[in-house]
């Protein structure tokens, strides 16, 4: 095995030395590296050149280098260069494909999964990545007090997932019931090196949470990913250098990644990020919707390309408080009334929001899933075109009527007035709130729009429940299951009425059933049908009134190659390279 591996590697080197050799040659033989018998082959349009520094910017410092406790992008993004997960989502197809795990099998009852790890994969210090590391990572995550959100997604119907080491390169997982999102969830686990972190875990959860903090010397951060952290200067930059032991190859069998260095420049805000990109100090920039047209005109001078990117996963919405603990009767009755919410949804001028707030770089939205979620998105849900006459008809049906003074009153004669809150400082939400307030005023509602501090808002949302209406946004993920905390009536983020003992309405009960059923269904097409029905219910009963799905508009310097528009990321960091020697 080792012999064959070495021989094939020699062929790989020969091919690398003769760039003229066509890709067909490489595709016929099985590629291998001296130390990795079956390296992962990363498909990309070109075979790249080696070298160069890729410079990106980030608007915040990382908070920790401990991947297990890292929560926000400013920490997980840099750590993504250092660690690989068992399986990964293909950026083009969004399918789950092998990564650290080279294969997996599932038992017929859908409850036992066996993952085979890729042999020869090494940590930065040369130790092999084994089943012990995977088991250690899960042990750490499930240790009470460790600040990981992994147990939240790996606990199925109140029971934690079972796992054990079968041999050095095999891990077996077992669940009580079949678990629909298993592959995406477990596949997303990135093992940590047991030999480096075991001591910290033995000292307890608090010590583990602090292990690999941002004060750790970068050379002690041992991963298995394409890049090694070289240095971190707080408030300035993080520098990464190529991992010479990496276990992925291009289609000619050359060891990836192509880039020699990556630098994350830490900048104070998005405007600085943009300025640095335009000044050619950085190589990529995620433009905001309203910058798209302007940046298109600057492409040639700036030597970059701005793409008409895919929609974002998350989205903003307006919701009404239906929680009896938070709102008193006349208002509670309006907010709990489906017709009232539907009337408001018809009064939301989504086209104007798309035009004015997002400069046309968005699509109107009516349901909880984004069209970016190609597999689960249901386009055929009830839509609410802007139609104030329709709104008035719905309000009449619900017993509301306009008085001589033009104000809307309910059947008991109470004037319809309420406050819409949102977090101050979010320009998009503030603009949307003002547009909505104007349209609701046309219906005779007396609406106050009051942006307030983010912390205050969240305190009301999950603590005092003392709010009336709110504009907010939540991030989305591919698998709708991860939204169960929002959608199940018992969820703590079931924001319009959290933690219900039993579902208050029939439609909430049905959503509960759908989420439970989809969680224990392994057939992905069946799960899709279930989640399609869920989207129909949400669009019909509008607990959250969605506005629009903004599009993304990533811009990249033209000196870079091997990136292309895709529903996921626009490039794989392993295969991106510089066309011309640069930096």
């Amino acid at each position, binding site marked *: 095995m080792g012999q064959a591996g070495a021989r094939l590697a020699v062929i790989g080197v020969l091919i690398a030395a003769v760039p003229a050799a066509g890709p067909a040659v490489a595709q016929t033989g099985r590629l291998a590296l001296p130390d990795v018998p079956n390296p992962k082959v990363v498909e990309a349009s070109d075979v790249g050149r080696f070298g160069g520094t890729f410079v990106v910017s980030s608007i915040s410092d990382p908070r920790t280098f401990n991947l297990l406790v890292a929560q926000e992008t400013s920490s997980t993004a840099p750590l993504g260069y250092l660690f690989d997960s068992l399986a990964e989502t293909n950026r083009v197809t969004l399918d789950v494909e092998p990564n650290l795990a080279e294969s997996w099998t599932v038992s017929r009852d859908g409850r036992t999964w066996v993952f085979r790890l890729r042999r020869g994969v090494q940590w930065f210090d040369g130790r092999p990545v084994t089943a012990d590391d995977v088991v250690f990572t899960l042990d750490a995550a499930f240790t009470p007090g460790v*600040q990981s959100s992994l147990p939240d997604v790996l606990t199925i119907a109140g029971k934690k997932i079972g796992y054990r080491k079968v041999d050095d390169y095999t891990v077996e997982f077992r669940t009580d019931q079949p678990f629909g999102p298993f592959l995406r969830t477990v596949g997303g686990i990135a093992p940590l090196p047991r030999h480096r972190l075991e001591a910290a875990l033995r000292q307890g959860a608090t010590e583990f949470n602090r292990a690999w903090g941002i004060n750790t010397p970068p050379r002690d951060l041992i991963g298995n990913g394409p890049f090694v952290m070289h240095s971190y200067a707080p408030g300035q930059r993080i520098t990464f250098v190529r991992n010479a032991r990496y276990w992925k190859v291009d289609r000619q069998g050359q060891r990836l990644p192509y880039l020699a260095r990556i630098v994350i420049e*830490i900048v*104070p805000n998005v405007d600085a990020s943009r300025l640095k990109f335009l000044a050619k100090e950085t190589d990529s920039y995620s433009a905001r919707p309203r910058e798209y047209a302007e940046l298109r005109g600057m492409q040639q001078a700036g030597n970059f390309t701005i793409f008409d990117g895919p929609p974002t996963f998350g989205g903003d919405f307006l919701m009404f408080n239906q929680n009896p603990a938070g709102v008193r009767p006349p208002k509670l009755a309006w907010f709990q009334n489906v017709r009232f919410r539907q009337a408001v949804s018809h009064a939301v001028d989504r086209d104007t929001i798309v035009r004015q707030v997002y400069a046309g770089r968005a699509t109107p939205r009516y349901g909880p899933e984004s069209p970016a979620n190609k597999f689960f998105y249901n386009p055929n849900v009830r839509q609410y075109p802007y139609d104030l006459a329709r709104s008035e008809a719905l309000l009449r049906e619900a017993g509301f009527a306009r008085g001589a003074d033009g104000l809307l009153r309910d059947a008991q004669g109470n004037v319809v007035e309420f406050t819409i809150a949102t977090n101050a400082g979010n320009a998009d939400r503030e603009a949307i709130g003002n547009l909505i307030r104007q349209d609701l005023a046309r219906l005779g509602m007396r609406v106050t729009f009051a942006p307030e501090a*983010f*912390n205050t808002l969240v305190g009301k949302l999950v603590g005092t429940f003392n709010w009336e209406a709110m504009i907010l946004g939540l991030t989305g993920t591919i698998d709708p299951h991860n939204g*169960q905390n929002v959608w199940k009536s018992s969820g*703590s983020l079931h924001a319009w009425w959290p933690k219900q003992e039993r579902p208050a309405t029939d439609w909430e009960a049905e959503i509960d059933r759908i989420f439970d059923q989809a969680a224990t269904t392994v057939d992905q097409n069946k799960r899709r049908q279930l989640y399609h029905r869920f989207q129909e219910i949400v669009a019909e009963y509008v607990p959250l009134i969605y506005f629009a799905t903004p599009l993304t508009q990533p811009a990249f310097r033209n000196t870079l190659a091997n990136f292309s528009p895709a529903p996921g990321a626009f490039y794989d960091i392993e295969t991106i390279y510089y066309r011309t020697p640069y930096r």
Partner: protein
Amino acid sequence: MLQYIVRRLLQLIPMLLGITVISFVIIQLSPGDFLAEMRLNPIVSQQTVDQMRRNFGLDQPLYVQYLKWLWNAVRLEFGYSFAFQVPVTWLIGSRLLNSVLLNVALFAAAWAVAIPLGIFGARRQYSLADNTLSFVAYVGISTPVFFSGLFLLYIAFRTGWFPIGGMTSIDYEFLPWTGKVLDVAHHMVLPVIAYGVFGGAGLMRQMRASLLEVLRQDYVRTARAKGLAERVVINKHAVRNAINPLITIFGYSLGGLLGGSAILEIVMGWPGIGKLLLEATVQKDLYVVMAALVIGSVTLVVGNLIADILLALSDPRIRYD
């Protein structure tokens, strides 16, 4: 004198107690806590959030939290940052030097420009040069530093002569030490202009006004009348008397050596403690804010003390004993 210094330093103790109690209570009483952001993450469960509250000790009564903090602070342990899970002292220490470096440079530039120009303006009151300086000073005083900062960044962007914010370039760590010094100096030009030109304006006006007042006094006329050289009249007699209010300002600005240019740091992307503290305050990262307040209060008091000592040294009429 020594007794006076000791007394002043002892006064620090009740003052710090007062400052910390009030800030601790106000921070905790304002709505929301550090975990607000996490509560809005659909993947994070209520149990996880509760667990973190316990880990951070946020579930205990307010006075228990304060007393624990105080006991640790007395032993110079300022606790761990909620957000970063590293000791607060490391977090602040990692940026403190950058802030001090910038502030010393700004300080030196502003004073080096403002004092001579103020004296010059006072000596040639209402001349064309003085009026021009006054005009520039008014523009400087009325330009907020965030605006001058952004304006200079725009200039840097258009000309390409200066880096767009930050303190070092991406190759910094690979440069020899001379290169490192030059690199930082290059990055420092714009902040120094932003603050030195615009921020020094107020100082210049102060110096000018103070000197003008002294120049009207009888002893100056006497000095001139007895035929002293103008240079001696100004430098030895007038300026020495006019400088007192500026020494007070000097001491006061010493208190700003750490956090005095937070806005400029944020605008120019200088990796100092400004942005760190702003974010900590917004997110209610309690112990970071508390440590910063303690450091800020101590430097302010010490700065004022230094000013008082300098006053006594420069003006023989001032005695503290």
